[in-house]
């Protein structure tokens, strides 16, 4: 007996919700980005599981997972650069205290 599709989907949903909790509840901007990474990974698990279970001859699921990898790398690079830049000017990484553009 092999693994039913629903196991993967439920695991990915749980991982996504844990990431969502992290994004919404953390104060530190870097910790918020860590939560975003968890959510992107949950999406990737779903994409690859659907590729394997629905249509392994088409590479759509894996191709989109590769695009998600690229977007995640870009997002982390820019996000961390912004956080480090803000830290240099404001001496803080707490998301609530970063209010330069708040009127």
């Amino acid at each position, binding site marked *: 007996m092999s693994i039913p*599709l629903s196991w993967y989907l439920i695991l990915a949903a749980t991982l996504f919700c844990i990431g969502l909790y992290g994004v919404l509840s953390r104060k530190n901007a870097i910790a918020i980005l860590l939560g975003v*990474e968890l959510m992107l990974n949950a999406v990737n698990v779903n994409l690859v599981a659907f590729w394997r279970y629905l249509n392994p001859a088409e590479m759509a699921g894996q191709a989109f997972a590769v695009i998600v990898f690229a977007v995640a790398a870009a997002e982390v690079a820019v996000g961390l650069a912004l956080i480090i830049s803000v830290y240099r000017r404001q001496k803080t990484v707490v998301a609530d205290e970063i209010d330069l553009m708040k009127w």
Partner: protein
Amino acid sequence: MSAEQILFILVGVVILGSALMVVTTRKLIHAALWLVVTLFGVAVLFTLLRANFLAVIQVVVYIGAIAILFIFAVMLTRREQMEKGRQTRPNWWIPALLGALILTGLVVLILNLPGAERTALALPEGLDPVRALGSALVSPKAYVLPFEVASVLMLAALVGAVYVATVDKK
């Protein structure tokens, strides 16, 4: 229960446990290290799904680059806020409730999904997933356009990150 199912459950427990540590642990450097464990678990899942190339990319790009970037960012911004006081908002129960609600909804949806109990299809005869993925990414009939857009995005992110993080000397 087959060996595959037992392996899945073990990996799933590791993934979810370390993900919970990522969002709850107080020391940020520990959160980044727990993220490495989660990412490694997801790589094992990719191997279980026979997406071997993605498993390798997961280890190389996610663990090798992204997680290390996180650890560097934690070290560069360490002194001020870390480790003293609480790391979560005072009203942390609202996100927790929201997450639990969304999770319940998703699980109900998944369990009622037609075909949720299906098992994996056999890989087609003679299909080499790595070769197929490679040609799908550069074939004009498949995904060459998203692939090129992703590379432009990467370039823009690279230039942007260098520009934003540079120290401006006045």
